[in-house]
């Protein structure tokens, strides 16, 4: 019995310590001022998805600009979309702006309003450009290029069509700062970090299950501890018997 007690204790001990200490900390979080303290540690913010070391890709489009950072898209420095997977580039067409990700396109009005997320198109996109007659072109490979109709409804493969491909340019410092600030948001409180740690969510999708396991291990420790104590007492009684 005591062997199981030791195995459970050593296997889940670290998690139990995390569970207990984070629980105590949360109980006194207001007195400790954790709800008012903002986390600025870069690696922690990055782990929580609140900061990125990724490069900002900047596209100057006449009077406006598009910037892509991770999966986020910024129009004139303001975030307009958070989930464009694998940003590829942005181009300007008549009365609209087109931003391409690996598997979808954001069609924007000239004021940055989203017209449509276009997903019915050839993928995976590796390049976006504009043809001589102002149509959007996407490249899957350098030799596999498709162009769309004006409404981005239908796509057809083209060959030997001159295309001006989108290439990122130099981002102005002020816009860069505005984007980074928007990306970080209002910041994360220390209380949030402890809460995420206590629930296991800090460790990802299966983290809460791991913490459930640690809580169950605590119960098992209590049970094996009591059982071991009872067995020890029984042995002592037998030894002390006349």
């Amino acid at each position, binding site marked *: 019995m005591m062997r199981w007690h030791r195995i459970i204790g050593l296997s889940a001990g670290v998690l139990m310590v995390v569970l207990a200490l984070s629980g105590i900390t949360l109980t006194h979080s207001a007195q400790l001022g954790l709800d008012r303290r903002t986390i600025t540690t870069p690696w922690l913010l990055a782990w929580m998805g609140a900061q990125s070391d990724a490069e900002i890709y900047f596209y100057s489009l006449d009077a406006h600009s598009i910037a892509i950072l991770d999966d986020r898209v910024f129009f004139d420095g303001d975030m307009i979309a958070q989930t464009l997977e694998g940003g590829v580039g942005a181009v300007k067409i008549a009365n609209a702006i087109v931003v391409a990700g690996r598997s979808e396109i954001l069609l924007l009005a000239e004021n940055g309003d989203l017209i*449509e997320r276009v997903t019915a198109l050839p993928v995976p996109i590796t390049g976006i450009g504009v043809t001589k007659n102002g149509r959007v072109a996407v490249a899957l490979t350098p030799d596999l290029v498709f162009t769309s109709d004006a409404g981005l409804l239908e796509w057809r493969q083209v060959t030997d069509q001159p295309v001006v491909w989108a290439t990122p340019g130099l981002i102005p410092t002020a816009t860069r700062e505005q984007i980074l600030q928007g990306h970080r948001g209002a910041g994360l409180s220390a209380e949030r970090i402890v809460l995420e740690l206590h629930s296991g969510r800090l*460790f990802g*999708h299966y983290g809460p299950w791991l913490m459930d396991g640690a809580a169950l291990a605590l119960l098992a420790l209590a049970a094996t501890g009591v059982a071991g104590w009872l067995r020890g007492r029984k042995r002592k009684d037998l030894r002390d018997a006349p």
Partner: protein
Amino acid sequence: MNFSMGSMRNSLALCGFALVLLVLPARGEVYLSPEKFLSESFGGATPPPEFVWLTGALAGQAEAVLGHKPAGLRIRYWALGARSAWILDEIGKTEAITAGVVVEDQKIARMQVLEYRESRGAEVRHAFFTNQFIGLSLQEDTRLSGALDGISGATLSVRAMENMARLALLLARHAAAAESSAP
């Protein structure tokens, strides 16, 4: 002490393995691709896409139905005769649910979850829930013509599904009116 260092190493390895597992990213569940949904809805001959613009009064009505501003200014649909198919996205709690809605003669003919990304509430994909939408139409107050039995623990997903059904009926009505008034 009969607990060996080998056992301890095994336990630590197990913990390490568990940590590797739990940092794997969670993904949405795709139940039916949009292409397959459309193909099934039109007997294998999907018509070319069209779109409605959410401008003017329609934008306000769509916002009232959803309870928030629609994500885009135009919505794509596929129509053949009195039948139209709509693929819509709506946030349940924090993630978008993608649903396909087929409207025929201003009544819902099919409702299906195509992709579900929330961590809980995916019961809304089952036929026992989605079949409740069949035959429902849109009343003047933009409510559905019949009541739905909800699913406990999936209230927000149920609401998102209901709002997508109402939006599809609203847009189908608008598209039909626009077509009938076209020269």
